């Protein structure tokens, strides 16, 4: 047995057509007035350059490479993120350095170059998951655009400075310790 579709019976009032039209006009004018008296900030439309959307918790936007208080990069150039990246857009070159203050004289690794091709990145967050040092994470900036392809290649300093303005941090372009290993320290 098939489904019995119940036919809608129109009342005589609905059949006149004039009354339903007036009801419909009532609905539209309600929307009109409601929208008219809603202040701009509370309307559904976000007027983009003037207003920006507040991104939800867990949104994956532009990366940041974290740093210690003294400006040293947290990344230890372990290549985990590069391995994990499904888009193969991270490329790292490691270097050695030693820092007496933090590492107590041990020689350490850090990236000499760290670049992410933002045009290839799919913002999956796998690099953040893979990092053993919590050195890279994806934050809420979604306005990643540029006029040419080259400026979408983010280098080490670009990545370290992506959120300096938001966080009120200093923009840096130099490691606090030189990269030449100080082998004079007696072990």
């Amino acid at each position, binding site marked *: 047995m098939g489904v019995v579709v119940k036919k809608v019976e129109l009342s005589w009032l609905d059949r006149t057509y004039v009354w339903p039209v007036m009801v*419909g006009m009532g609905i539209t004018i309600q*929307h*009109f007035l409601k929208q008219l008296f809603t202040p701009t900030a509370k309307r559904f439309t976000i007027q983009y350059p003037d207003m920006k959307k507040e991104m939800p918790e867990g949104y994956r936007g532009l990366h940041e490479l974290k740093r210690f208080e003294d400006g040293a990069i947290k990344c230890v150039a372990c290549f985990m993120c590069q391995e994990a990246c499904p888009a193969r857009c991270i490329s790292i070159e490691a270097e050695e350095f030693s820092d007496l203050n933090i590492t107590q004289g041990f020689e350490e690794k850090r990236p000499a170059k760290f670049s992410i091709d933002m045009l290839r990145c799919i913002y999956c967050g796998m690099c953040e998951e893979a990092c053993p040092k919590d050195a890279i994470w994806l934050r809420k900036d979604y306005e990643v655009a540029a006029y040419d392809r080259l400026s979408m290649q983010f280098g080490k300093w670009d990545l370290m400075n992506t959120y300096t303005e938001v966080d009120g941090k200093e923009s840096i372009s130099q490691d606090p310790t030189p990269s030449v290993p100080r082998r004079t320290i007696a072990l």
Partner: protein
Amino acid sequence: MDKLASLLHTSPAIAWMVAKLIIVFGGVFSLAALWTWVERRGSAMIQDRIGPNRAALFGKIKILGLVQPLADGIKFFFKEDLVPHDANKALFWLAPFLALVPALMGFAVIPFGRSFVSGGQEYHLALLDPGNGMGLLYPLAIGGMAVYGVLVAAWSSNNKWSILGGMRASAAMVSYEIGMSLAVVTIFMTTGGYDPSEVISAQGHLPWAWNIVRQPLGFIVFFTCMFAETNRLPFDFAEGESEIVAGFNTEYGSMKFSLLALSEYCHLMTASALMATLYFGGWQVPFVKDPTVMLSVASFLVKMLFFAWVFVWIRWTLPRFRYDQLMRLGWKAMLPLSMVNLIFHAWRMSQGH
């Protein structure tokens, strides 16, 4: 007026005529341009959007985006003016004007304020003085001409979609003209004349003596037919976007398209003015017996703009009719209704005397 006339070295009559021409056509034209903005903002508000609000004078003065029509106009002027290869070039150029001119001309007889006497001479606030012998037959005749604009545009662009749109427009026009005319004839009959000033003065200043109360059926018919006449939704299948691309203006671009679009809004203004004159007492101010000239003009403007807004309002409320539904409504509902209206009032008049 005498001062202006002596400034222009003409007689007051001619100076008055020129002033009226500028006021009426300039006014209607700019109102039509403004209404494109009203339509866009209004529709946006109805649909809980915001609409064009960013156009600004000198990049600073925004005034709710009111300069949007200006920006659109400038943009249209700088667009490439394409004419299809196989189009009939002369008619293709002529069509926008054929659409625009009748839409504007219909306004000529409508009095937009009460007549006044100054310096021993009577001034009428309508382009054609009352008693010109054409009266309200003139806008009806001109309104019938308006379909030529659509039809010529459709035919000359040599495009199947356009021709379909043009055919639909002319068919709609034919079927709705009759119902509308019969509704108007009823008014002429009860008024005893077809001059707009007579129609207005017969209605008086009391709202319950206006034709809307006396002939509600006639109003509904006239109102519906006006939508078909102006080719607006819910009867806009001359350019049913979902079915025939853009109908009669598929091939149009640049300023020619803008003229076609503007002519629709001019038509809308004329139609609202007609509605205000025929059914809502024209420039009469409710409950004021002898309004001042300014007050009467304001009253007329308010009525006209209200109806212009209703056109917008209805457009964003109702979906488009199907073509056969339109024909059925026109011939099987509007025509009999207006006939009933006519016969009923004829019978009442015969009983009255």
